């Protein structure tokens, strides 16, 4: 992280610290915990046509941001066969919880690269997570009054 970046919100900083405190094998285990924790979205909570597919990901993952409140709520859905993608989505769902729209908009797209997962996961697999952030931010900016 260069000094010119705005500071990460505390929630994301805490996740980052947790990952960086671990060795490679344990970082994967932590990602698995996040994957297991991705909350099920109750049926009907998000209208079928409101889900947006994250095409940057190798697995079918969908996101939706409810921007009707001051603190946007991020929903994500990904299959059990795609635990890495679920883990990335879960990090964002948990890390963005309680943040304001402005705070989410300020999260840098290279946040995924700051978790120390390149060696454990490979850079190629990290790209999808940036796609999720980009799409979440785009949904928020689309929803905000011009």
């Amino acid at each position, binding site marked *: 992280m260069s000094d010119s970046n705005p500071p990460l919100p505390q929630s994301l900083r805490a996740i980052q610290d947790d990952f960086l405190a671990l060795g490679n094998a344990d970082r994967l285990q932590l*990602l*698995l915990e996040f*994957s297991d924790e991705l909350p099920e979205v109750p049926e009907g909570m998000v209208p079928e046509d409101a889900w947006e597919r994250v095409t940057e*990901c*190798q697995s079918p993952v969908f996101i939706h941001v409810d921007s009707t409140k001051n603190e946007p709520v991020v929903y994500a859905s990904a299959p059990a*066969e795609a635990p890495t993608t679920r883990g990335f989505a879960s990090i964002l769902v948990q890390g963005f919880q309680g943040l304001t729209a402005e705070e989410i908009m300020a999260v840098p797209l290279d946040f995924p690269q700051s978790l120390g997962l390149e060696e*454990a*996961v*490979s850079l*190629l697999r990290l790209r999808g997570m940036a796609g999720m952030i980009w799409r979440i931010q785009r949904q928020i900016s689309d929803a905000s009054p011009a």
Partner: protein
Amino acid sequence: MPLPTDPSIATHNYAHPERLVSTEWLAEHLGSEGLVVVESNEDVLLYDTGHIPGAVKVDWHTELNDPVVRDYLNGEQFAALMSAKGISRDDTVVIYGDKSNWWAAYALWVFSLFSHPDVRLLNGGRDKWIAEGRELTREVSTPHKTDYPVVERNDGDLRAFKEDVLEHFGRPLIDVRSQEEYTGERTHMPAYPEEGALRGGHIPTAHSVPWAKAANEDGTFKSLEELREVYTEQAGIDGSEPVITYCRIGERSSHTWFVLQHLMGIDNVKNYDGSWTEWGSAVRVPIVKGLEPGVAPGH
């Protein structure tokens, strides 16, 4: 000592039935002395969510590649990896994985570069094992360290480089990617991330035979008759000439390489692992767009 072959595979009349085992066979032989089961997936965490009891994970991205150069491990690195995974040179290795065994076939191909004597694929892979309700565990096995010998990697027989492809024109070349990738409509798999090829299209003269033509719905391989129809009748591969297969980074084409070499018994099949991510970005190599294979440059 290698384990016995799977008699149920022999009924398929494949050229090398000793390279394939059924889920029934594996279930029956789990825990046998001299057997190591390896899981190799596209998703690096999938093994950790549950795997065949006793299986060890080998990840293509993070473990089979050199960390710096775009190349595979060398002999010392491979020996160290095998030793850490508890694999001995005379062990029977059975590899399985997600996505109809793409990455498992890729791992098997890399094991073959080091001429591991007995390496087999699980027919149907991870999905079939799960569909049949067979046991999975999250318990990570701690392998006993072995003393795998240093064997130099031999690329010559199984691996093609860009220069080999340029000299190969006029002989069979198989593009196993999706039609959209072949025509140049897109440079990566539908719904897959962009992996950096600067041009879309295919290598001149390459026939389009998407990898899935070799697989049944349940991920097992098609019968020899069906494979002959696809590769010999339709694509003209009869074993009289050397063949090169390619895809995007070499994973789906390893699946096709396995089919041609081990199931159909065609000798001299090489996998071009540089594949489209190299060819589609290389300067001044010829490219064809559209559905037609196109003509070889200079022919």
